[in-house]
């Protein structure tokens, strides 16, 4: 038996989401039919609005409703520092900390030839332009992940930026706060020891 077309289409749509296969999509589709009509309408509206009303900030690449984004257009933020991250969600995490008041730059990925991402495929050119046109920028803090690709991206950026006399720093990697040394794996411990600081 074939599913009626509206259901079949809904299943197909769910399957476009990452990590969702046929089984889960079917379950979600049938769950959706049983939902309140209002909830379904809200859901559909949020989907469309997320797509229509959100853009990438033309300066930093973060997701935003207005362009430039709130952070880029806030003159009270420290204009001398920029943190470079892989994804918009990294900006969210760093903002939650409420301790950092500088700017951000979102690369939308890391350098990874295997995934077809070379220097021209991630948001690097706009970072360089930004540094060139903002002479008061003093420090670029690179916060890519501690993967080989994250490290390569960090090293690459540092080669391009350092010659311009701008300070380049890298976020320290090591033990998670509140984590027990006893339970850390050997490489985390090793990295933490390597990156130790004087007190």
């Amino acid at each position, binding site marked *: 038996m074939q599913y009626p077309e509206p259901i079949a289409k809904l299943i197909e749509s769910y399957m476009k989401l990452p990590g969702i296969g046929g089984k889960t999509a079917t379950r979600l589709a049938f769950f959706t039919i049983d939902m309140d009509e209002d909830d379904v309408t809200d859901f559909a509206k949020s989907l469309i609005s997320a797509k229509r009303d959100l853009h990438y900030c033309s300066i930093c690449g973060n997701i935003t409703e207005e362009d430039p984004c709130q952070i880029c257009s806030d003159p009270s933020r420290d204009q001398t520092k920029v943190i470079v991250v892989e994804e918009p969600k990294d900006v969210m995490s760093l903002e939650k900390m409420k301790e950092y008041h500088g700017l951000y730059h979102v690369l939308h990925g890391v350098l990874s030839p295997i995934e077809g991402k*070379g220097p021209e495929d991630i948001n690097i050119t706009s970072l360089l332009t930004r540094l060139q046109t903002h002479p008061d920028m003093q420090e670029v803090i690179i916060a890519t992940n501690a993967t080989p690709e994250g490290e390569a991206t960090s090293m690459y950026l540092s080669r391009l930026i350092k010659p311009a006399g701008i300070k380049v720093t890298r976020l320290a990697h090591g033990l998670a706060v509140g984590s027990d040394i006893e339970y850390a794996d050997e490489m985390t411990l090793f990295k933490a020891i390597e990156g130790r600081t004087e007190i």
Partner: protein
Amino acid sequence: MYLESLTLRDYRNYEDLNVSFSPAINILLGENAQGKTNLLEAIYVLSMTRSHRTNNDKELIKWDKTAAIIQGRVNKQLGTVPLEIQVNSKGKKAKVNHLEQAKLSQYIGQFNVILFAPEDLALVKGAPAVRRRFVDMEFGQINARYLYNLGQYRTILKQRNQYLKQLQHKKNQDLVFLDVLSDQLAAFGAEIVHQRLIFLKQLEFWANQLQEEITQSAETLTFEYATHLEDAADQTIEQLYAQLQNDLKKATKKEIFQGTTLAGPHRDDVRFLINGKNVQTYGSQGQQRTTALSVKLAEIELMKEETGEYPVLLLDDVLSELDDMRQTHLLKTIQNKVQTFLTTPNLSGIARTLINEPKIFHINQGNLLEEEEHTVD
């Protein structure tokens, strides 16, 4: 350390197996295609999270089933550790003490095994890749840092090779990024070479001792690490790094042309020399066999030295292939200290008098029957 017990569920031709082993010698006896190698393989997977004979984990799942489970209790100096590997169509999970490990590299090293199969004669005769694999698998088991370096190196190598291929078609080539990849590769490559040299020196010591015993001091066994790096053995990591960087730089044009990385430890080799002559080219069959045996058995002592415990030895169909003198040496090496599993179609050809009270299991189509005593499920 030793394996106290093993449980297999829907693994290869085993449906539901529950068995306790002797901490000394276990003999797995059976006709062809009954599941002897499968059982050794299960023990190997429990140690290394992967099979020694296939890269496709799904082959481990019993036909028509969806998931295979291997559980074992490993007795170590500090107590007993339950280990578990689960394989299903989506991937695999590794658990230590019932806790799933986020990374397989965190799991490896809990339970160390050394496997010796007839194919291992290729260790001496085979292509360089066979020896590199041996070196990487064995050193990776005893040193977490080595395993980490190797993982990073392989990822970077893949990225770099891909980038070299992409550069072939590009008009404006970004050589800065290639440079970054070269530096990264050189950094991990230098550490790998350095560690390999240290471990090989230790391994050489034990291997030579055995070789001298087996040959009554007629033969001295030495190792030579074959690499494009000059004086590698006398260099610091920093010097090796600088050399590797330099070699990569010199090769750039050719590398882009060929689309592959031409310098680094992934191209190195190990040579075994008897009285200064390469066994691969000049050794007799017997010498090659003795060398392979000495190198493998030396691993036992190296692991003991590095981890504080003897590994478990898995011998697949090799004992009967060795003459009495070599069998004697092998058994002397493992006696009273190394838990051993050995498979054989029959007990003739095996110097049984040398084996103290082995536990003997008859294997028949995925079922185990313990000799003389009770039936094992």
